[in-house]
């Protein structure tokens, strides 16, 4: 169904009066994935209002809840903040987490989570390559040893990650190490680009940073990720969230979008992120290139 539309799409738009509002987070990945949804829907003749990269996650979420957005892009792991009375552990499993939030939002908020991409944008810790080689760090176990041997550490992280069981707190517990408050710099936001740049530039002696799974710039910046054999943090897979009402009206879009999203894997996303962040390409171009390459667009 994805290639059903024709060249005269603009003339016979499926929904000429009431365009579908597509939005995403104001970050790189939001730009790429948002544009992807936008392009593919336009390709299929839908009339779209472009709200890509329009706001912070909380605004984005609220906008969906208040019917201000029709389609958004969110991460399954964020379900931990949205759903109430759910055991934390479910978020650590990809499909369980997805099903949980899907069910929850469908029942409570009339929001439908479409099948997510197979790319876990989870939280990880990264260090510089030389640093890892010098101290022989590969996994968090190694890191725990390093810390416990009194190695110098300045970890930059988001506050939320640091104070969660499914985050640093859990890692400390499970791997057996402990960081003092003067060994961490806590930022209230989860902007890893900033943390990474602090790590690369050594600002304030930062030598460990929180990174996300899909951050594409790590190899270029000579950074390596510390493996997390216990997979402590939740799974964050990007998924398109549609309002049930909209989906009822345009049932076709589910397939169109899911086709695209399920085609994306971790490497694709890392690569695309790198193109934008490191090489400075436009997110829309990157999205279009991907869609063209995969044959969704001509």
């Amino acid at each position, binding site marked *: 169904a994805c290639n059903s539309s024709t060249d005269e799409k603009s003339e016979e738009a499926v929904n000429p009066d009431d365009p579908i509002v597509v*939005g995403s987070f*104001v*970050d*790189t990945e939001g*730009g790429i994935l948002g544009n992807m949804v936008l392009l593919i829907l336009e390709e299929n003749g839908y009339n779209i209002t472009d*709200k890509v*990269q*329009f*706001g*912070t996650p*909380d*605004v984005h979420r*609220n*906008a969906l809840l*208040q*019917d*201000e*957005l029709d389609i958004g892009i969110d991460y399954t792991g964020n379900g931990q903040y949205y759903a109430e009375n759910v055991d934390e552990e479910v978020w650590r499993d990809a499909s369980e987490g997805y099903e949980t939030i899907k069910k929850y939002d469908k029942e409570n908020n009339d929001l439908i989570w479409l099948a997510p991409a197979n790319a876990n944008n989870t939280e990880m810790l990264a260090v510089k390559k030389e640093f890892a080689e010098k101290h022989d760090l590969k996994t968090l176990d190694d890191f725990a040893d390093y810390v416990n041997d009194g190695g110098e550490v300045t970890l930059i992280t988001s506050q939320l990650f640091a104070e969660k069981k499914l985050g640093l707190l859990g890692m400390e517990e499970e791997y057996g190490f402990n960081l003092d408050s003067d060994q961490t710099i806590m930022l209230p936001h989860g*902007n890893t*680009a*900033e943390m*990474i*740049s602090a790590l*690369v*530039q050594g600002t304030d002696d930062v030598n460990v940073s929180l990174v996300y799974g899909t951050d594409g*710039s790590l190899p*270029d*910046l000579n950074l390596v990720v510390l493996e997390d054999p216990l997979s402590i943090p939740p799974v964050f897979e990007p998924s398109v969230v549609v309002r049930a009402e909209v989906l009822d009206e345009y049932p076709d879009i589910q397939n169109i979008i899911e086709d695209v999203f399920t085609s994306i894997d971790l490497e694709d996303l890392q690569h695309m992120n790198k193109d*934008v*962040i*490191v*090489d*400075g*390409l*436009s997110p829309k171009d990157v999205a279009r290139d991907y869609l063209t390459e995969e044959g969704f667009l001509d």
Partner: protein
Amino acid sequence: MITINDKTLLLLSSIGAAAFVFLNLIKHKPNRILPGEPYTSFEIFGNIGITILLVWGVFIVFSFVELKHKNKIIFILTTGLIIALFSLLLSNVEALIDGQSSARISFSAGFYVQLFCIYMLFSTYTERIKNHTYIKWIGLLSIVGFFYYFTNTDAFSNLSLVKEYTIKKEQFYDHLRIHALLTFASVITGAFIAIPLGFLAYSRKKLEDKIMVPLSIIETIPTFALFGVLLVPLAGLGSLPFFEQIGVSGIGWAPAYVALTLYTLLPIGRNTLTGFHSVNQNVIEAATGMGMSNRQILQKIELPLAFPVIFTGIRIAFIQTIGGAVLAGLVGGGGMGTFVFLGLGEASPDLILLGVLPIVFFTILLDYILRTIEKIIGGIIYD
């Protein structure tokens, strides 16, 4: 004994010269986020760079001597300096880049500081040249012409800032317009609300705290929280036909506009109150004695006399809002904030600057606009 003839000139040219000598002029970055290699002015300009330093030096000398056409000479030299700085820079960065596609040039402190000094000199001497308006126009036009000519070539294309701009080109002017619109709309709305409130606080002593304290409270609600609070009522409002038509909704320009407006209330309200408090009682007495009604006293006496203080409040609100309007970027309201927050998200200083520099430019423009408005309004109410 040496007497300093022109302190402004001495100050600015010393800073400019120091920036030239001691600060890095640019950074050469192999890609968008790597820190990059710093270069000083000498390293970039080579021996020709001496000419620029020389101009700064000449300015320093000029600040000690009495010269016949000093203002004009300095103005012309300043104009030349802007053009020289840019053309030298552009002609020398080509070699650094050497065809690497993702490599780029970022300006460093040395460049921005010199630019700042040049701007200050330019505006100072534009004001000082009293008669020969044509010289000002020639100066201004040659700068505009210079940039206009080169934007049409790809001379600038290696600059990181320009690269960021190229990516965002489609949205850039829309956002610029939205930013300006948001700023003006919120301050003007704010003034229409806050001036009457300030007056009420002044005329009804009992209400003073009841008005000023809530204004302060509003000012303290952090933006992020405020947007959340505004979403629901605005979304509700947006479902009504009229508001839907004008585009009110819980996201987009509406919450940004409301939030920015709310934030202007305190500076304007407070200065209105203090402005009224400062009007000479003798004059009010004379007016009362002439049988003016309270409204007439307000209109003809108190308002004009309090005007400078009130307008200062508006000026503060304006400048504050110009910067504050980036917050619209957080709720999809558009404006320069979109670039600033994207830049923050991607840790790309140049993208941040792509958002910030227009704001800086806009501030400079606004300063002129406000002065003109002040004169016009002043002219009307002091008539």
